[in-house]
C-alpha cells in the first residue's frame, strides 16, 4: 500500500500541471501513469496555446470567441476562467524555459487559428505539445515529485453511499506493468484524474493508442456523471492512411483546401464565405465529406491541402514538422505536392463532469484535461483551446485538491434539484446486465457502482486479474475493440442519424456480451500488454456507449453534433448539457441547463457563421 496526499492519475499536460500545483501548495504529491510522462499524448499537439497576451487583444475577446465556437453550449464561468488565467499560465511556461517561437523583438510569436477574432495562438514551431510536455516534466523532476510510471490504474476506491454526491474517493488501485503486482494507493486529500481522451473508441483517429478513456470509465462507474459525450471533434486534416494529424497551423499560415477539380471549395460552394479554410473545425470537416459525397473528392476518399505557395522558407520556419509527417506517414513532399487529408476523430469535448475547481460530485475526486468537462468547449472546441485548458484547470485542480481556497464554484455537479430527467425509449438495454455477477470474467470492480474501502477495492481488482488470467479460451480483446471502433466510425461519425446511432448501440451491446467471454492469452506477469489492453477495451465499451447515448437523445444540430433528422440548432429545447451516469449497473440520462451568464455579461446565442 502506498500513501500520498494528492494522487494524480496521468502525466500528460493536465496531470503534470496538476502535480506541480499540488506540490507548490504543500501537498505530498505523486503521479501514477501508464506511460512514462514524456510519452503522453500531449506531446503530439502541434498548433499552439490560445492566450490573450498582446495589446489589442484581451481575455474578453477570447471568452467571446470560445462561447461562440462552442455553439453556446459552454458554461460562461468556466470559459471566463480559462480566458482570464491563460495569459499568466502561458507566461509561467515561458519562465520554465519553454522554447516558444519568437518575433524579431524577442517576444513570443502568436498566429491565427480557426474561429479566433485575433491571432492569439502562441506556439513553438509545429510541435507545441512536445515542448509543453517536456517543459512541465522538467519542472516535475526539478521539484522531485514522485512518479510511478508504467503503472496502470485499474479502478478508484470510493465509499458506498447510495447517492454518489455523498461518496468519498479514498484512493486508487493500480497494476505495475513491469511486474504484474496490483497495489492500493491511498490519497489523503484527493485523486485527480488526468487520463486524456477516449479517441480509441473510433477507428480513424489522430489520438495515440493509449487514449482509451480509462479515467472516464473509472469515474463513471464510481458514480460521477459524464457530460456532453456526444460532442466529438473530427479534425478536418488528418492523413488518410494513419489518422496522423496535419495541424490547423497549416491553414492558419495560409494553407488552402482543394477538391479533385482544383476548386477552393470552402468558397466555391459557399461552406464558409468569410473564413474559408479557417472556419471552425466542424464546418470544414462536413464540407470535406460533402465534397467527397458529391464526387469531388480525390480517389473518392479525401481532399487536398496545399501549402506550397507559402514558400520553403516560411514552411521550414513554422511548419517543418508537418513536412516530416507528410513524408514519413504518407510519402508526400509538402514542398512540391499537396497533402491528402480527411476528417479524423480528434478530441472529446465532453468528459467527466467537473466544476471550475476540477471537482466531481464525489468528494476527493477531481478531473482535469481532456478527460474532464468543465465545460469550456461545449459543442465544438476551438483549435488551440485544449492546451490552455490543461494548464489552467490542471493547476486549479491540483491547488484545490491540496487545500487552496479557490472560492465557491458556480458550476454544479452531480444529480440535484436543478436537473431535468430524460424519458427517451432506448433501442437496446444499455449497461452492464449480466456482467456484474462476481464469477463472470468481465465482472470488474465498479460495474454496478461497486464501492467500498481501498482494501476491498484492491482485493476486487486482484480477483479480476486472476479471473482474466485463469481463463484460457474465449475471445480476444483485439477482436472486440476492432468491432467497437468500426461501429463508432460507421455510425457515430461526422454525420449522424437515429437509425445509425441505434445500430451502433446494438453493436456496442454485442461487444459487451462478447466481452463476457474475453480472455488473456499471454500467461506472463511481466509487461503483460495483453492484460492491459483487455481492461482498456472494457473501458472503451463503457465510454462508446455514453457517446452513442448522448448522440441519440440530442435530436438537434449543434457544433460538431450533426443530426440528419433535425438540421437546426434548437435553442429552445437544447441549451442544456447531456449527462449520463452509471446507476446500479445501468446508464441513466439527465440534463442540466447551460450557464450563459458571465461575470459582466450574458452570452446571447447567435447564429454561428464564419
Amino acid at each position, binding site marked *: 500500500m502506498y500513501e500520498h496526499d494528492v494522487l494524480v492519475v496521468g502525466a500528460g499536460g493536465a496531470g503534470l500541471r496538476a502535480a506541480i500545483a499540488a506540490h507548490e501548495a504543500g501537498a505530498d504529491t505523486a503521479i501514477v501513469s501508464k506511460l512514462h510522462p514524456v510519452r503522453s499524448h500531449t506531446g503530439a499537439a502541434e498548433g499552439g496555446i490560445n492566450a490573450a497576451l498582446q495589446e489589442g487583444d484581451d481575455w474578453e475577446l477570447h471568452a467571446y470567441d470560445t462561447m461562440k465556437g462552442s455553439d453556446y453550449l459552454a458554461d460562461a464561468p468556466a470559459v471566463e476562467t480559462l480566458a482570464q488565467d491563460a495569459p499568466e499560465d502561458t507566461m509561467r511556461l515561458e519562465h*520554465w*524555459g519553454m522554447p516558444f517561437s519568437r518575433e524579431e523583438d524577442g517576444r513570443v510569436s502568436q498566429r491565427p487559428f480557426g474561429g479566433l477574432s485575433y491571432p492569439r495562438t502562441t506556439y513553438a514551431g509545429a510541435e507545441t505539445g512536445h515542448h509543453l510536455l517536456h517543459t512541465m516534466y522538467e519542472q516535475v523532476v526539478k521539484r522531485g515529485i514522485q512518479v510511478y510510471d508504467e503503472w496502470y490504474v485499474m479502478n478508484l476506491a470510493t465509499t458506498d453511499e447510495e447517492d454518489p454526491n455523498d461518496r468519498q474517493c479514498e484512493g486508487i488501485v493500480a497494476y505495475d506493468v513491469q511486474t504484474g503486482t496490483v497495489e492500493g494507493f491511498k490519497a489523503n486529500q484527493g485523486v485527480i484524474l488526468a487520463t486524456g481522451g477516449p479517441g480509441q473508441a473510433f477507428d480513424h483517429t489522430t489520438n495515440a493508442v493509449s487514449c482509451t478513456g480509462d479515467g472516464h470509465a473509472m469515474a463513471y462507474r464510481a458514480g460521477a456523471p459524464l457530460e456532453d459525450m456526444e460532442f466529438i471533434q473530427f479534425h478536418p486534416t488528418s492523413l488518410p492512411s494513419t489518422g496522423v494529424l496535419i495541424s490547423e497551423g497549416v491553414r492558419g499560415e495560409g494553407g488552402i483546401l482543394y477538391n479533385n477539380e482544383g476548386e477552393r471549395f470552402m468558397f466555391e460552394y459557399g461552406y464558409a464565405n468569410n473564413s474559408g479554410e479557417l472556419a471552425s473545425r466542424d464546418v470544414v470537416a462536413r464540407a470535406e465529406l460533402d465534397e467527397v459525397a458529391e464526387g469531388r473528392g480525390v480517389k473518392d476518399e479525401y481532399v487536398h491541402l496545399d501549402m506550397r505557395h507559402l514558400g520553403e522558407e516560411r514552411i521550414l520556419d513554422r511548419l517543418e514538422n508537418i513536412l516530416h509527417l507528410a513524408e514519413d506517414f504518407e510519402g508526400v513532399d509538402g514542398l512540391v505536392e499537396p497533402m491528402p487529408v480527411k476528417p479524423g476523430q480528434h478530441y472529446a469535448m465532453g468528459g467527466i463532469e467537473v466544476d471550475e475547481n476540477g471537482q466531481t460530485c464525489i468528494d476527493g475526486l477531481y478531473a482535469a484535461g481532456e478527460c474532464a468537462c468543465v465545460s469550456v468547449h461545449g459543442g465544438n472546441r476551438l483549435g488551440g483551446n485544449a492546451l490552455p485548458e490543461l494548464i489552467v484547470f490542471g493547476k486549479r485542480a491540483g491547488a484545490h485538491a491540496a487545500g487552496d481556497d479557490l472560492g465557491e464554484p458556480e458550476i454544479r455537479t452531480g444529480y440535484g434539484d436543478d436537473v431535468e430527467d430524460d424519458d427517451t425509449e432506448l433501442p437496446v438495454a444499455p449497461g452492464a446486465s449480466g456482467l456484474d455477477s462476481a464469477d463472470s470474467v468481465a465482472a470488474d470492480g465498479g460495474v454496478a457502482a461497486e464501492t467500498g474501502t481501498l482494501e476491498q477495492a484492491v482485493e476486487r481488482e486482484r480477483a479480476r486479474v486472476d479471473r482474466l488470467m485463469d481463463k484460457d479460451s474465449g475471445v480476444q480483446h*483485439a477482436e472486440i475493440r476492432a468491432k467497437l471502433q468500426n461501429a463508432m466510425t460507421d455510425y457515430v461519425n461526422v454525420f449522424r442519424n437515429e437509425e445509425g446511432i441505434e445500430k451502433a448501440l446494438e453493436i456496442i451491446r454485442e461487444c459487451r456480451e462478447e466481452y463476457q467471454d474475453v480472455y488473456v492469452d499471454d500467461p506472463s506477469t511481466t509487461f503483460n500488454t495483453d492484460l492491459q489492453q483487455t481492461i482498456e477495451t472494457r473501458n472503451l465499451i463503457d465510454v462508446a456507449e455514453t457517446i452513442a447515448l448522448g448522440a441519440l437523445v440530442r435530436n438537434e444540430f449543434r457544433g460538431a453534433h450533426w443530426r440528419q433528422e433535425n438540421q437546426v440548432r434548437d435553442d429552445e429545447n437544447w441549451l442544456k448539457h447531456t449527462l449520463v451516469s452509471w446507476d446500479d449497473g445501468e446508464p441513466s440520462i439527465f440534463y442540466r441547463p447551460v450557464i450563459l451568464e458571465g461575470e459582466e455579461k450574458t452570452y446571447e446565442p447567435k447564429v454561428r457563421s464564419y
Partner: protein
Amino acid sequence: MSTQQQEPESQESPQDPEMKGTESPQQRRLKEKEEGMVDEHAEEEAEAAGETVHIKVFRYDPEVADKQEPRFDDFHVPFEKGMTVLDAVMYARDEFDSSLTFRHSCRQAVCGSDAFFVNGSQMLGCKTQLSELEQPVRIEPLPHQEVVKDLVVDMDHFYDQMHAVEPYFQDEDTPAASDLEEQRQSPENREKIKMSSRCIWCGACMSSCNIAAGDNEYLGPAAINKAYKFAMDDRESEEIKEHRLRILEQEHGVWRCQTQFSCTEVCPKDIPLTEHIQELKREAVKKNLKFW
C-alpha cells in the same frame, strides 16, 4: 508465400509444442492455427494486397517456459502501401499472437516509445516504412539495454542519465504572478537551441553508442544534448551555464565522446548530437574548466 501467421521458429530455437508437458495458451493457439484454423479475414486482405511481408521478431520472456531462451518468431503480415514496422508488429500481435510485447503509443514519432533495432540499426518503428527494408525484416529490442520482454527494454538507466544533467530551466528570479512579463529571446537564439529541443527520449542514440556500451557512467548523447539545450539558451545566466558545463565536463561527460557519429546517424529527430557534444567541449575549454 503463405499468408498465415507465424511458423514456429526454426533456427534460433526449435520449438515443439508436443514436447512440453503442459501446453501454454500461446502454444495451443499456435497449434490451432497450424491445423488450419486460419484467420480468414487476414487471408482475404493479404490476397487483395497481393503480398505479405516477412518479419522476424525477437522473443523473450523471463517467466514463460518456452520464451526463457531467446528466439525469433516469423510472421507473414499482409502488406499495404504506407505500412510501417510498427503497423506490422501491431498486426502480428492483434491477429496472430497477442502476447507479442512492445511499447508504442503516438504512431507519429513524438512519444519515443518504439525505438527498435531493425535490420541492424536503431530506428523508430512507427517512422520506418516497411517498403524501405530488406526482407525478412529483423526486429529486435535496442542493444546494450536490458531486455524486459520481447521488444521492451529497461529504460531506467537512460532516464537516470537524463536526470543527471539537471534537465530543467534554472532562472534565478522568477517574478511574482502579477508581473509575469515574458523574458525576451532572440529568434536567433531560439534557432540555436531548436534542434536540441526536439529530443523525444527514445534512447536510440544511447543504444548505438560504443562508448556508452563500455562505460555505464557515461552521460551519453541524449543527456548531453539535453544539457546543450539549456546551456545555449540565453535566458539562463552565465553562472548557471558554467554550472552546467561543470556537470558536463566531469570524467564521464563530454570528453568520453570519440566522435564516432553513430548517435547522430540513428537519431530519428535528426539532432546533430555529435556536433553538439563537440561544441560543449569547446565551451568547456573556453571557460578554462579542467578537463580529463
